[in-house]
């Protein structure tokens, strides 16, 4: 029962489209084709651009955070070597300047937290559950970066920085909005241009159609005036030839009919 209804809906939809397409003028068909092409192209370009930007943004963010982690690691080398947690905490305090960083931690060789920075005193919830080696990862709404603290080729600890992804998402959303606005603007421009340019094709065709009506009414002296070298121009010349032939044969038939009528009169 359901499938039948769906099929009916689909064919009803299709019928509607067919009806619309069937009754569109050349002008509208042309404009629709051009607009459809433009919009598809713009959408594709926009999507690719957004994807590329998202990927680049992630990569840049990860690199920046990694660099910051390395700098922190270098600055608290001594603090870790001489077990001065207060000094390490001070070094981490500099992270306040970077508003997207929610957690910064220095871990000792044993993997235990040696000193920590929490943005706005968020609390230990933002700490990563386990230490990892030198790498970065996106997850749980954060970008997490680990960097080893190295003293003369010996790893004496690890630095972990965690950054909120909200700023990145906010920027992406902004960019998407801009691109969508651009899409609209470009579409409007496309509409404006296409509705002018479509006359190149539809003009001659309309003129031909009008001439056909005129000639159909009986004015066999009417000629189509299309000079272009393309197929429509050829169609116009053929049309004119056809009209000329029709005029000639009509004239001959008229002449014949007149002669017959005259001969009948003479016989009577």
């Amino acid at each position: 029962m359901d499938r039948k209804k769906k099929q009916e809906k689909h064919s009803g939809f299709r019928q509607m489209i067919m009806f619309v397409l069937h009754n569109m003028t050349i002008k509208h068909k042309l404009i629709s084709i051009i607009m459809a092409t433009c919009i598809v192209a713009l959408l594709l370009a926009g999507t690719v651009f957004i994807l590329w930007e998202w990927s680049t943004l992630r990569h840049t963010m990860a690199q920046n955070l990694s660099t910051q982690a390395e700098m922190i690691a270098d600055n608290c080398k001594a603090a870790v070597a001489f077990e001065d947690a207060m000094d390490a905490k001070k070094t981490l305090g500099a992270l306040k300047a970077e508003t997207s960083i929610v957690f910064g931690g220095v871990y000792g060789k044993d993997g235990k937290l040696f000193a920590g920075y929490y943005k706005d005193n968020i609390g230990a919830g933002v700490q990563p559950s386990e230490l990892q080696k030198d790498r970065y990862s996106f997850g749980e709404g954060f970008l997490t970066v680990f960097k080893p603290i190295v003293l003369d080729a010996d790893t004496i600890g690890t630095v972990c920085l965690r950054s909120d992804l909200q700023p990145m998402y906010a920027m992406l959303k902004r960019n998407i909005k801009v691109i969508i606005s651009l899409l609209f603007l470009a579409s409007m421009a496309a509409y404006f241009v296409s509705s002018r340019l479509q006359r190149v094709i539809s003009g001659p065709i309309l003129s031909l159609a009008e001439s056909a009506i005129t000639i159909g009414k009986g004015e066999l002296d009417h000629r189509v005036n299309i000079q272009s070298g393309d197929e429509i121009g050829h169609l116009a010349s053929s049309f004119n030839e056809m009209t000329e032939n029709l005029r000639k044969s009509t004239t001959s038939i008229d002449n014949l009919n007149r002669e017959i009528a005259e001969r009948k009169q003479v016989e009577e």
Partner: protein
Amino acid sequence: MKIKTYILFTVLLVGSPALADPTASREYQVKAAFLYNFIQFVDWPKEKMGDGNEPIIIGVIGKDPFGDAFDPIVDKEIHGKKLLVKRFMAFEELKKTGEKDKSLLDREIESLRKCHLLFICSSEDKSISEILNSVKDHSVLTIGEVQGFLEAGGIVNFVMEEKKVRFEISITAAKGAKLKIRSQLLRLAKRVVGEDSGKGNKNG
């Protein structure tokens, strides 16, 4: 029965000193690690460091409190150089042996001067000035653990603060020994004496 107990007691008492170096206390394990780490944050003049494979020498003079604390370090390398821990007898004893054999005294003092770091044990309290004098101008990083060590001319002095090992540094003495101490290390010092003494006493 009683005799047996007495014998057992005596054996235990006598036996103890015969044991090998006792496991170093946590304090000296940390101090040994710090001595190793100091090397990373102090710059010796080129002549002292040398270009070749000469090892970096950590000297310990006096009654050695470290025991096996240096074990984790002796196999390590710094800047491609090996580490060597040299123990010296108490200065007073050195002088006594010197009275009998002057050349021995001279050789020992030469050895002392070759050290990059020299840890002066608390047992040498009375001889500090003499020791510091004999290694003067030889770019030796002198480290002590008694009060007034910096004032006597030493460069680094260990200080205990609530069971934590801290240290104080004398920039004047470091400059005198042509040693450059990195700022990362300086700012960890509990007290800095010298040209930067605008810092004076630091808390925590």
